[in-house]
């Protein structure tokens, strides 16, 4: 395991950002924190540049859609401190209709395509992103396909109707 325990890590973050992060849990030893979009970049900046923590490796940025929640869209950051070999997961939840969050491309160039992918599939608007276009889907697509309301298959297709199979 890592050289820094999750308790130490949490204490350092809480000292720097008192009352601004809540602990979601520690599933499988991976400390998971939730914060707001106002301080997410400051938190990421601190985690990356603090000499004791050095979360220099941005593993991943992605999102999840929870249609039942008030804040429907969760943006998930995975960071990895290669020096201490410890990982951390940060979550920011956004209200549908106001899915704006500052970009992390100023901290990591690698965030560029990760954020484009997240925008492409969830419609999260990364404010300040240099080139926020769709990346895997076609440019003139209007929907955000990884949202739960988007059906897996075209609901208009008739070749899979039950009556063809005697049901």
């Amino acid at each position, binding site marked *: 395991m890592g050289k820094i325990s999750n308790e130490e890590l949490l204490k350092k973050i809480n000292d720097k950002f008192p009352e601004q992060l809540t602990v979601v849990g520690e599933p499988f030893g991976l400390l998971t924190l939730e914060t707001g979009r106002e301080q997410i970049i400051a938190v990421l900046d601190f985690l990356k540049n603090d000499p004791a923590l050095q979360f220099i490796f941005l593993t991943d940025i992605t999102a*999840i859609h929870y249609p039942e929640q008030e804040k429907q869209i969760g943006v998930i950051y995975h960071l990895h401190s290669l020096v201490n070999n410890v990982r951390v997961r940060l979550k920011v939840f956004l209200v549908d209709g106001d899915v704006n969050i500052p970009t992390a491309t100023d901290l990591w160039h690698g965030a560029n395509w990760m954020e484009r992918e997240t925008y492409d599939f969830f419609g999260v608007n990364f404010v300040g992103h240099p080139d926020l276009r769709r990346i895997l889907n076609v440019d003139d697509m209007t929907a955000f396909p*990884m949202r739960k309301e988007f059906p897996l298959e075209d609901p208009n297709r008739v070749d899979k109707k039950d009556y063809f199979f005697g049901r």
Partner: protein
Amino acid sequence: MQNHPVYTDNDPQTEYSTLNLGPTHPATHGVFQNVLQLDGERIVSGVSTIGYIHRAFEKIAEHRPFYQITPLTDRLNYCSSPINNMGWHMTVEKLLGIETPKRVDYLRVIVMELARISDHIICNGVLGVDTGAFTGFLYMMEHRESIYEIYEEVCGSRLTTNIGRIGGFERNFNTIAFAKLRKFLKDFPVTLKEFESLFNRNRIFVDRTKDVAAVTAEEALNYSWSGPLLRAAGVDYDVRAMNPYSSYEDFEFEVPVGTNGDVYNRFLVRNEEMWQSLRIIEQALTKLEKEPTDIFHADVPDFYLPPKEEVYNNMEALIYHFKIVMGEVPTPTTEVYHSVEGANGELGFYLVNDGGRSPYRLHFRRPSFINYQMYAPMSRGMLLSDAIINMSSLNVIAGELDA
């Protein structure tokens, strides 16, 4: 970033030519496009367009039970499918708290290292082809065939393997598989040695690759590079060593590291990784001698499909079969991130489960996707012929790029 100075000509009369490199250009080794602005043979700017074979795996995965997601992972990096398959299985095992027996771990290590070798064979062989030497590729290709034959003995298929099951393997390794493996371990080092002596000090090859597309460690980390590319830039990050999975902590191997991240360094790192993989497989075979030979999966009837003969003749097996297929086994509501060292870098699975039969959300951290985003910026100022070699040494696999 680039060693070639950007050719700047302030004459407004200068006309750049536009080159569509791809989507089906032979040099791209996959379906993706780069629109390059060229000034003579120098690249002025480039825009990458990807997504030509996007198949919405993450969306499909939300509608499939866990064991049916394995064939989707096959089609990510199809040059080393077993690593993806087993990475996925280990993610689910982590979620469900399944402990696999040591023998399963070692067998997995063997298959995963074979997959790594087969992937590096392609990448380094093709790098040779792109610099004008077809010979090395043909020598090496023969051994990819022997690796595929080993897969065939273990799982029945070759390219998209769907190898293994949640909890272990679908069937035990037979004697032919071990015989083929031993033959491979005897024959391949000879070819690899020959391949190295063909390229490592070859004047033409070195001139074409050395100092081409050099990347510093800071830049590589800034772009979240991982795998052989990051190690060629001098960062010794290897998931196998840092967060060992599948009992990699039992093995002795070295993590080769380059110095300046150029194409030549990447080539050398991949070659050395093949030697280390061979070393790991040898060790695994020695360790297997001490393990009971009849264990090839964990004892988890709730998740491991029983053999078909049992299902037809045994009530209990039929019940388990039904429960697994219909997804009536309760699973924990939590989230898990698991990563394995894929042939191209850190292959991560972020699985959010709501207790149902299929994931609530599954996200693949695909190394090709993340490694490739530096391609257009780093090509600026490069010669077109260097950019081709650079692309081939990035080893971008379209399936993994687009998911």
